[in-house]
């Protein structure tokens, strides 16, 4: 029997959740025994080459490219997991939510302390190749159906391991108090 296939992505996140995946230490060897990785920054596969069993999403959606990637994952993965605060509720990038997008862009490109003196021509990035910025940062489950949520910033390595192992082996998911945290 072939091994379950896992894909991962980091959208509007900091890669901390991926670091936490790696933080399962020597169990990474068990993980490789258990599953096969497809599209993921872990193995640097850039496009889906087959239908996957589990998709793990880090980060929320702050631009059109995130939305495109997330929808692509939904299409190519049977089970989708929101991993970490940003995927679940937008996380720190969502601190801009509630502030009108115009103010955000002004702060980032015109008035902010790191740009105020160096953007004399008041250039705003508007090339067609650049992803379009969304009005706010969206939690993943507001854009596609998400099957499971693993909170944390980052989620504890044990939580990730427990969850993936439970999914793959069909076992009960253990959620000890120490592993379910929001920070």
């Amino acid at each position, binding site marked *: 029997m072939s091994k379950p296939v896992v894909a991962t992505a980091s959208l509007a996140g900091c890669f901390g959740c991926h670091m936490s995946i790696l933080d399962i230490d020597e169990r990474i060897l068990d993980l490789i025994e258990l599953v096969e990785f497809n599209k993921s920054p872990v193995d640097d596969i850039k496009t889906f080459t087959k239908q996957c069993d589990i998709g793990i999403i880090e980060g929320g959606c702050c631009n059109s490219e995130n939305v495109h990637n997330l929808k692509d994952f939904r299409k190519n993965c049977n089970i989708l997991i*929101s991993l970490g*605060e940003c995927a*679940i*509720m*937008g*996380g*720190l990038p*969502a*601190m801009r*939510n*509630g*502030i009108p997008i115009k103010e955000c862009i002004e702060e980032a490109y015109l008035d902010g302390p790191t740009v105020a003196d160096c953007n004399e021509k008041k250039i705003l990035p508007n090339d067609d190749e650049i992803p379009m910025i969304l009005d*706010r940062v969206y*939690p993943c*489950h*507001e854009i596609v159906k*998400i099957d*499971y*949520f*693993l*909170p944390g*910033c980052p989620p504890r390595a044990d939580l990730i391991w427990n969850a993936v192992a439970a999914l793959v082996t069909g076992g009960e998911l253990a*959620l000890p*108090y*120490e592993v*379910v*945290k*929001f*920070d």
Partner: protein
Amino acid sequence: MSEQITFTIDGKQCTAEKGDTIVAAAKKNGVYIPTLCDFEGLKPAATCRVCTVKVNGAPTTACSATVSQGVEIESNTEEITNIRKAVVEMMFVEGNHFCPACEKSGSCDLQALCYKYQMMVPRYDFTFPRKELDATSPKLLIEKNRCILCKRCVRSSITTNGKSLFAVAKRGNKTVIQMDKTLAADLSEEQAKEAMELCPVGAILKKETGFVTPIGQRKYDAAPIGSDIESNA
């Protein structure tokens, strides 16, 4: 000695003193009823509704209602737990609770209740309201994004000449806590500390210090909220 009365919580025989609130009576019997707005020494406000219980079948708030002889209290039933979890989720989505960036994370009562009820994601959509951060006081920072309007600060005795430092303003989902700017200008160190310690979340903070306790040693890092009460059972 006060009159002893007996009653049940989820079928368990309990004893308490007449006049005890249900929360206090439960505590004496090793039963934890979650609270947020309740605070020892302050008049009950019963605004957060997290302590909702049923007394002889009728819903009420355990922080404000007192026990009576022979009553049957329902607390940890599936129905009540669902109500409490829903209320916690409502508080979470109506504000901006960015736990990873919050000074109170790990010691926050709201977060601790989310943990207790294993809120992986709230059932309601986040609202991301725009709220104010009031940094005008030399000593205090009021982060309204995190405020759950428990009114502990409003009910407190933090006053100057009988004038209250905190008050509520507006109504509906625009309701907000206001700090009196004139009074806040002359706040003592002790008053600032008291205000911060009253706040169950990270909405009232003393300026210049934060993130003092390392992760792992904070109030709710190791054991769930209420486990101290339950371990006395």
